[in-house]
């Protein structure tokens, strides 16, 4: 039931059920961590921290980095779409 993912160097994930452990693949764990890190920007108070952080991302190196990430992300997205992995949007139910 409990699976320790020591290879990733993260805390013991003991306590997860079998089904959840099975669905927590390395790829999903990586995306969960990356999305959580990206969301830290959103979790911080807007006025003193986030605005300033986002402003600093308007420099030329940041723009180049952003374009690079977007290009790779877009190609990866196209690959995922081509393999038919998309699911309906959550807000379609409304």
């Amino acid at each position, binding site marked *: 039931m409990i699976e320790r993912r020591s290879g990733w160097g993260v805390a013991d994930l003991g306590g997860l059920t079998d089904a*959840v452990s099975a669905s927590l693949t390395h790829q999903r764990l990586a995306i969960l961590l990356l999305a959580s890190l990206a969301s830290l920007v959103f979790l911080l108070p807007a006025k003193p921290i*986030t605005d300033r952080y986002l402003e600093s991302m308007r420099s030329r190196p940041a723009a180049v980095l952003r374009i690079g990430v977007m290009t790779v992300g877009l190609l990866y997205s196209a690959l995922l779409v081509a393999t038919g992995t998309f699911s309906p949007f959550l807000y*379609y139910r409304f």
Partner: protein
Amino acid sequence: MSFASPLFLWYFLPAVLAAVVGAPRHWRNGIVAIASLAFYAVGAGPTTLLLLACMVVNYVLGPALEPDDWDLEPKRRRRLLVGVIAFDVAVLVIWKYAGFASVQAAGLASLTGLDLPTISLALPIGISFYTFHHISYVVDVYRGERPALRNKASFVAYIALFPQLVAGPIVRYREIADQLTQVRSHRLDDIAAGFPRFALGLIKKVVIADSLAPLVDACFATPTDQLTTATAWLGAIAYTLQLYFDFSGYSDMAIGLGRMLGFKLPENFARPYSSASVTEFWRRWHMSLSRWFRDYVYIPLGETATVSGSLTATCGSCSPWSGYGMAPTGRSCSGGFITALCW
């Protein structure tokens, strides 16, 4: 048809963009209207007829709601407005709640030994969103903020604009009326401006939200007696991220698509998880919905009711829109709003 489906990305979108770029610019609304109805029909099937019926009623009655310099019959106009809104809301309520109400009625009747039949109506995709657009249209025309649309293609393009038809952002008529009548000529510039936003939304949806979906499903499928602390927290965090990246991804795609077609759609998110209060959160999450309820429910109610009464009524009318299961959320939000105001 989903924005993230191969049919949309490989065939539909390129065909529409090619048509918009290649055809004379005054054809844009017509192309968008036809494409939007085709887009909707592929996903909604026969319920497209309901959308068409609602559009006919609102389009035909719209010009009669316009105020004019003489305006000899304001009461008649007001009665007509109330009638049109009642029609729009009735369609929404019937298609959204008739099944639920009949099941409840049958359950109650079974206690007395009666056997009532239940109704099962397929929920038309995006019915809430096009209802909001219809109401925005008739109210803005009634208030004299913008004239009614006499051009059928422009009207269909507003109500059924495919980038936002099934999940928003909700566009108030006065925000887009001028864009419908003034067709810009910089079409390639629009495509260049809109594509990065569309790509960002696609990445959010396909790479992040869809990758987290199986994990969320596994967590939420865990029976209560087997639920552990770790599973519960993992499910809560993963769902928080999935919901945000799914919906904001959709909104980014819709705004980018709208821009590629020459429309500037309103923003729908502004870093909602950095909000410091419930009030601020709803100003940052699904902003177009909050603005709609503010303009068409809260402010009109505020003319006759107290602030707390208006807030409760606004949240009370917002939560049924989300579905009967969201009623507790609406109550907790109105409680949060009132608490934040009193703080």
